[in-house]
């Protein structure tokens, strides 16, 4: 019984993905019609500058926003877990986690308004594009990293840091030699989470992006209007392969850190 349930669940999750991947190797122009085995859509993908540039931009934005999210979110999580009760802690904690529950439309619209007002007041950002998308993604990623790091620190004996200090470590050395190695898996996990969130976001990016900031999901989405070709399927296979590779490497690294 549980076995049947397992297969049903796995099928529900993966069958559409497998179908999508399968049709990437079809010779037909119509995305869900089998026309014999062919790699022509991978060749077309390689020749499509617009998709390639958008993919490269998306990767750079994802890496940049994930890194920013880890720095800011890690600090936020540490403050929430370790700085004890301070005035406004509850409000600060709730606000830091708010992007997790806000609808993306609201997040996107509010960030757009924020950027417009900021530009009117200070002249920066001069135009919306890759930078504004990166900042927008970093805010959502920050919330995820903060939650993950806070949970990890809450489960970690606070006297570890006291013990390090008692043995002669300054606060910075105690952080570097004890706290940081112990929260490193959470930081990595948070980085990957933020990276993935940024990579597949359409809604927020659509709000805050400009002419020079068209990310890969935005391009794919706009292709819908012109009619899809199996090029998109081929793109999905490439992304899937990359995701599996990154996930596998991350899992292996986390296990090594854990031991």
């Amino acid at each position, binding site marked *: 019984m549980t076995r049947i349930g397992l297969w049903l669940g796995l099928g529900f999750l993966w069958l559409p993905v497998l179908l999508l991947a399968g049709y990437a190797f079809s010779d037909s122009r119509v995305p869900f019609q089998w026309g014999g085995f062919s790699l022509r859509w991978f060749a077309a993908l390689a020749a499509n500058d617009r998709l390639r540039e958008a993919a490269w931009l998306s990767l750079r934005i994802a890496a940049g926003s994930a890194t920013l999210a880890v720095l800011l979110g890690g600090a936020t999580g540490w403050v929430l877990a370790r700085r004890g009760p301070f005035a406004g802690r509850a409000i600060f904690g709730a606000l830091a986690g708010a992007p997790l529950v806000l609808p993306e439309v609201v997040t996107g619209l509010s960030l757009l308004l924020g950027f417009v007002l900021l530009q009117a007041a200070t002249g920066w950002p001069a135009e919306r594009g890759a930078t504004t998308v990166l900042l927008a993604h970093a805010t959502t990623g920050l919330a995820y990293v903060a939650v993950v790091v806070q949970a990890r620190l809450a489960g970690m*004996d606070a*006297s*570890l840091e*006291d*013990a*390090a*200090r*008692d*043995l*002669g*470590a*300054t606060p910075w*050395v*105690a952080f570097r*030699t*004890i706290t940081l*190695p*112990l929260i490193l898996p959470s930081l990595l996990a948070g980085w990957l989470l933020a990276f993935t969130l940024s990579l597949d976001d359409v809604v927020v990016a659509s709000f805050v992006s400009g002419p020079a900031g068209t990310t890969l999901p935005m391009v794919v989405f706009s292709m819908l209007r012109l009619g899809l070709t199996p090029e998109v399927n081929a793109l999905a296979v490439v992304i899937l392969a990359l995701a599996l590779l990154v996930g596998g490497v991350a899992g292996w690294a986390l296990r090594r850190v854990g031991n």
Partner: protein
Amino acid sequence: MSLLEIAGLSKHFGGIAALEALDLRVEPGEFLALLGGSGSGKSTLLRLVAGFEQPDAGSIRMEGRDLVPVPPHARPLNMMFQSYALFPHLSVQGNVAYGLKRDGVPRAERDARVAEALEMVGLAGFASRMPHRLSGGQRQRVALARALVKRPRLLLLDEPLGALDANLRERTGFELRALQRRTGASFIMVTHDQNEALALADRVAVLEAGRLVQLGPPRAVYERPATRFVANFLGAANVLEGQPDGAGGLDCPTLGASLRPAEPMPPGATACALRPERILAQPGASGPNTARGVVEDVAFRGDDSLLLVRAAGGALLRVSHAEEDGPPPPPGTALDLRWEAAALVPLAG
């Protein structure tokens, strides 16, 4: 000169006093136990000495030097934590070497001293183990080795035996005291376990609600408790309440007895402590320092039985019945009890 001098030390948390004008001296090479219940301030005192908390008032001086402005990492003392606080990502070697590394001790000397410290706690050969692969007792020893490897003059121990099971606790207690003698360091041990404090320490400091209520050698504190709290906390003595009879004794209507301690009651004192093992059953006993009662309950404790005896006046007395005196009287037995005048200890507060 005392190794550690604490004077007028106060600490409040949100308006509640954790420590109130506490004075304490610790001599070189002394094993001092801080004994108290939860909320007595004993752990706060330890954290103040280690530097993890800042006092609201008072001074902490070590070998004449004011410690209060010194951050924890620069204080010349070490602490063993209740949770042991072993660094989970470092091996036993890495844990014990951590403090020496911070001091910049060269590699060769560091290795030698780590080996020596592990040898001292009986863990030679465990250097490459990770903490999660150790038993509770072994972790306790690593924590001890890590705290001792820097050869501190003063070691703070927060409930060092608290997490061990009963049979390991006794043996580890003896080892702890042997280590203290061998290193010549002063140990300050926080504990809520009176047996641990009495068995290991040279002096016991009893804390109640942030105040030091009694300080002295274990035997003196046990036999001559100063207050009701100490009498209750150490060995659970009977506290007999009464009114001064004007002749240096106490009238005790709830007991149906008059108490005549060997030394006259100090003015204002209205209670005496009487240990359960100092009360004897003696048929026909009468006069001062005797009482009558009926056994209500009996609890077997191994080397003796504890009788709960309801006295004629309504008070409940705890009476110890030694095993060698035969089987204890069953509930419902009427008993005549008596005690020596010297067994009565007048209580000041």
